[in-house]
């Protein structure tokens, strides 16, 4: 058998394989493959092929160096395997909306205060909303990233554990016994949930914005021009109406928490919400009918017309009725499913 010297092509093939292998096996695997390629080339030459062609065939038979190196690799060749895929999706479903909502909501609040006093409304909204959307996207990406990293690490530590236990020695049977699934591992049945963490986060953001509104509207809307220094909200509504309004919002947030922790709808829950809805509607309608609400300067300048109060009352009625109907239907559906 002749000792054919290997060409740079083979050497670069071997390098491509070796650089993807764990350092401690590199040398050994390269040495073995080098001998194999030489043997295969010898066979090809014995069959009458020119050496270069024999080498090409040998390397092509071994195939893509990346795939070959993967076959040597010890770890799992996937990021997240079937054993954890479902849990991964569940974590993803929680983290993405929660972090997106948290980042987006906090940024929006910060910007709404930070940008107050802008000359025109469109610029004000764009400057407040655009960074909030950006922050929400960042939050979503961060949530997805955390979920991926957590389960990729879990996947790899479990493989390392299995290797450490040793697949064939005596303790393996006990270890396997301990890790085997049994009915005892079933989670105790938990009551199903009608509301999600995402819903709680969004409700918190919406209520947070409503809470911030009177403070925002008490700042001057314009820095220049005829309305400079004038807040859009009539300062007279602060006593006693705004504290009442804020109080009802706090109760509404408490109700959202209660709904989340109770997990299921109940008629009591519906009743509390209805009371809060009606209290808020009564408060807003009273304020709209008895107070100016908007800064009188705005009315004098003709910025706010006579229809303001009627439109406001109509809106309050529509939103209240809509919420009552929606919560009634959701509650009836949930309670109905349980009987």
């Amino acid at each position, binding site marked *: *058998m002749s*000792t054919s010297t290997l060409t740079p092509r083979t050497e670069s093939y071997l390098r491509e394989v070796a650089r993807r292998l764990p350092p401690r*096996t590199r040398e*050994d*695997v390269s*040495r*073995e*493959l080098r*001998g*194999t390629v*030489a*043997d*295969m080339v010898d066979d090809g030459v014995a069959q009458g092929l020119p050496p270069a062609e024999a080498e090409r065939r040998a390397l092509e*038979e*071994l*195939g893509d160096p990346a*795939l*070959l190196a993967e*076959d*040597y690799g*010890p770890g799992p060749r996937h990021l997240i395997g079937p054993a954890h895929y479902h849990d991964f999706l569940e974590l993803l479903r929680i983290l993405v909306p929660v972090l997106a909502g948290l980042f987006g909501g906090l940024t929006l609040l910060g910007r709404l205060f930070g940008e107050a006093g802008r000359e025109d409304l469109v610029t004000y909204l764009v400057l407040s909303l655009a960074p909030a959307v950006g922050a929400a996207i960042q939050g979503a990406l961060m949530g997805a990233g955390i979920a991926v990293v957590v389960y990729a690490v879990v996947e790899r530590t479990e493989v390392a554990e299995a290797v450490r236990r040793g*697949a*064939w020695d005596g303790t393996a049977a006990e270890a396997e016994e301990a890790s085997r699934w049994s009915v005892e591992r079933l989670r105790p049945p938990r009551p199903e949930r009608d509301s999600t963490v995402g819903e709680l986060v969004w409700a918190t953001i919406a209520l947070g914005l409503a809470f911030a509104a009177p403070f925002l509207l008490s700042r001057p809307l314009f820095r220049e021009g005829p309305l400079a220094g004038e807040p859009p909200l009539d300062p007279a509504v602060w006593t006693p109406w705004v504290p009442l309004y804020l109080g009802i919002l706090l109760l509404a947030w408490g109700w959202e928490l209660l709904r989340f922790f109770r997990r299921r709808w109940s008629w009591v829950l519906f009743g509390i919400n209805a009371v809060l809805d009606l209290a808020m509607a009564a408060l807003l309608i009273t304020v709209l009918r008895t107070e100016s609400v908007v800064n009188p300067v705005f009315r004098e300048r003709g910025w706010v017309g006579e229809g303001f109060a009627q439109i406001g009352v109509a809106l309050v009625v529509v939103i209240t009725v809509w919420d009552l109907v929606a919560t009634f239907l959701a509650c009836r559906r949930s309670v109905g499913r349980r009987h």
Partner: protein
Amino acid sequence: MAAEPVDQVVASHFQELRRGTVVLACLLVLDEPRYGYALLRTLGDAGLDVEANTLYPLLRRLEAQGLLESDWNTDESRPRKFYRITGLGIRVRDALEAERLRLDAALSTLSRPTPPED
């Protein structure tokens, strides 16, 4: 067009069916130390066409599991890694062989000769 997917399905099931047999084949012939390429040819001559890129990583895995042990032979001009079965490997081989026979018998009792069509 219609034939190709069937061929692909058959090929993929063939692969599944053969997967475990390569391990058993290696354990059966490695009572005698052999290096990778010689083993490849032995298997090929016996009618088991195993690809080099399947066999070499497999040998490493079997060694890592303690079923094979290896030694470098540097007496000749071309250094070669010789693999040999271990005591543990023999136990595993016997168990696999028994299972292979049992499966063969089980499948034979299930299969019936198809009646001629006309």
